[in-house]
């Protein structure tokens, strides 16, 4: 059975790249979100196996969305995918329980390998 993935990024282009990479390897993109609020709502509705979450998004940023997702499901699997390489933010996110982080721009293999490692835990 294909793993279900939720993509959250405010840039359509970025979601398109992610989608292309993941679908080519048999992942099922069950939903897309362009704001933090949307990401949270779709997570609760769709219960995906994993979320690829951007940090800078309108309405609610990714870190806040991450915290709320964890609050509703402590076992959620989240990978942060962001251009923000600020260490303290990443460390905070790791402390909150994310599985991995990807710094944009990323190579397709990197996304695949991160998502595979996170799902096989």
């Amino acid at each position: 059975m294909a793993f279900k993935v939720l993509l959250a990024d405010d840039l359509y282009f970025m979601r398109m790249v992610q989608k292309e990479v993941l679908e080519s390897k048999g992942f099922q993109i069950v939903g897309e979100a362009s704001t933090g609020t949307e990401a949270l709502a779709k997570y609760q509705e769709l219960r995906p196996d994993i979320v690829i979450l951007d940090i800078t998004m309108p309405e609610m940023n990714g870190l806040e969305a991450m915290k709320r997702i964890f609050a509703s499901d402590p076992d959620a699997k989240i990978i942060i995918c962001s251009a923000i390489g600020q260490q303290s933010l990443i460390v905070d996110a790791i402390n909150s329980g994310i599985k991995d982080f990807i710094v944009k721009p990323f190579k397709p293999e990197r996304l695949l390998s991160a998502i595979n490692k996170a799902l096989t835990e």
Partner: protein
Amino acid sequence: MSSAGLDDKKLLRAFLEEAEELLEKLNDNLLQLEKDAGNPDSINEVFRLTHSLKSESALLGFTRLSELAHRLEDVFDRIRADHLNLSRPLMDAIFSASDLIHEIISRISRGQTDTEIDIRSVIGELQQLAGLGLGSEAAEPVEALPAVASAAESGELPLKSFQRSQVIEALDRGEKIYRLRIKVAEEAEPKYPRAYLVFNNLEMITNVIQTFPNMTAAQDDRLYERIVVLLSSDLPEEKIAAACAVDLIEEPELEVLDKGRIDELLSLREQGKRSALRASRSARIESTSVRVDTNKLNEIWQLVGELTIYKAQLSQLHDRLSRRRENESIKGEVERASDSLERITTEMQQAIMGTRMVPIAVLFNKFPRLVRDLSRKLGKNVELEIQGKDTEIDRTIVEVLSDPLTHIIRNSLDHGLEEPEERRKANKPEVGRISITAQQQGGKIVIEVADDGRGLDVGKIRKKAGIGAEITDEEAVQYIFSPGFSTKEDVTDLSGRGVGMDVVATRIREDLKGEVEVRSESGGGTLIRILLPLTLTILHSLVISCSGYFYAIPVQDIRETVKVTEQNTIIEGENEFYDYEGRKVPLLRLDSVLLGPTEESSSLGLENNGVVVEQRRGRVCILVDELVEEEDLVIKPISDLLNHRRLFSGVTVLGDGRIIFILDTARIIEIIESGGFDGI
């Protein structure tokens, strides 16, 4: 070629200024390494210094210099990562390289270039001895330095006393001690958070005792390419290895340490002590070059700008005054300018102090995860509440506080909170509570860790410490902080939280100049309160004089300054008390304690200045000649020779050169409470 660099005079000047400082540090650290070859702080520092020199000189076009620094950096990278021995010949080669760097830089400062300098022979020797470079056989270390060599070879770092006790406790619990090495893939940027992912996974399922480099405070990102972790766990190897299954983490190597290796590790203790000392020293060095919030720096610059204006104004006014014209009207102006100067200086000092402060969130933020993971592992339901994350605290305190605070929280979860079953039986909510709070109270930071668990077993503590009935329960529980308490044999079966608290207390009291106390209620929970100074270096104090000498009393210890007269003095035999709001507070004649009894000490004058100071153990009223002024004092440590009775916590020098001793009020009260100064 270096013409591109030489064109830009300003850049070059900045480079030379920095290079000079850098060379000095390089030299200091190399000398340190010659004495103590395995010193990880110095190795890291040299690596960092050569790394900066490499990039800075490349930027200015000094290719030879950059090349040389690069090679030296490589050598230290190997020493760091592969635990290459620093043999004497290698050390000599490193020193020649450093001398050559010195020479090149002084040529550059004379306006010459680095192109005609031959760096090949020095580099060749360096690479051969370090086993680096093309075609050269890896040179075996010629001379092994005992202890340090074995430490470096096995990747063992000396343990701090705290970590040592963790190893012993883990063995008592029947856990195995593991050493794990990992490498962060070259393409991973940044490296620190990636290594942190593994570290975090490990913390979740095991007890991490030590990491190298330090994971709790991020340093130069490049240091995190290779990580060595010492941990204890009762899990099988596969489970621990699974924690390293993180993308871009390569070559995880996990080994179980056998008894021999563990003994070896524990025997490195003495060195550990020395390295802790060095660590605190290098922490101070680091704090001279910490990264600072730009807003805070701007604030400082603005204040400095204002300061120079007022300074100029004052000197102009002074000129006019000395020409003896318009004296009266100018006097007022001088006074106002002088007041402004005073105000700005104070603000500037506070602003500078602000740059040392960080919100305690940097420390607290790791606890939710720790609690969540540990509670799952233990099968306990826990709700964690954190308050006061914004409380600001000195950066150096945060680093030292991390280990003890983690230990306290672990203890709360492990020993304090009961299993769900036991809680149900005791009619308590199944979900246990732990709360961590921080707040500033006056000149202190108060940190509390509270749980609603079973509380300490006072009976067992009494038995263990051999305490009689004359001591109240409230006092008895404090014995968990007594040195050596938890190292006594059968302590691990103490229900409640006794384990390792003596080590925690020592760190808080000695390294942080803080206080720690515990309150416990059988079946109702435990509260541990830590009191810390805001900063370790600046103390707001009252300067007083006594028999012609000056002393200082920390304002945070002062309850009130009073007038002592015959009317409010109570004499009982040889003891004198001050009648403080109906309570008898012992009177202390500072001069007779510090300088020996004097003739006039038998009678009080009409009216004397007294300072009532207060500590947890009690109060004392110190008689002084004069209250001089309140000042922020920069504290320097005091030599034992001058302080054999330990009555002073430090010494400071005022702007006018006067030397002032800072009274250790806690110690003074302790002496008085336990019978007085005779025989001390």
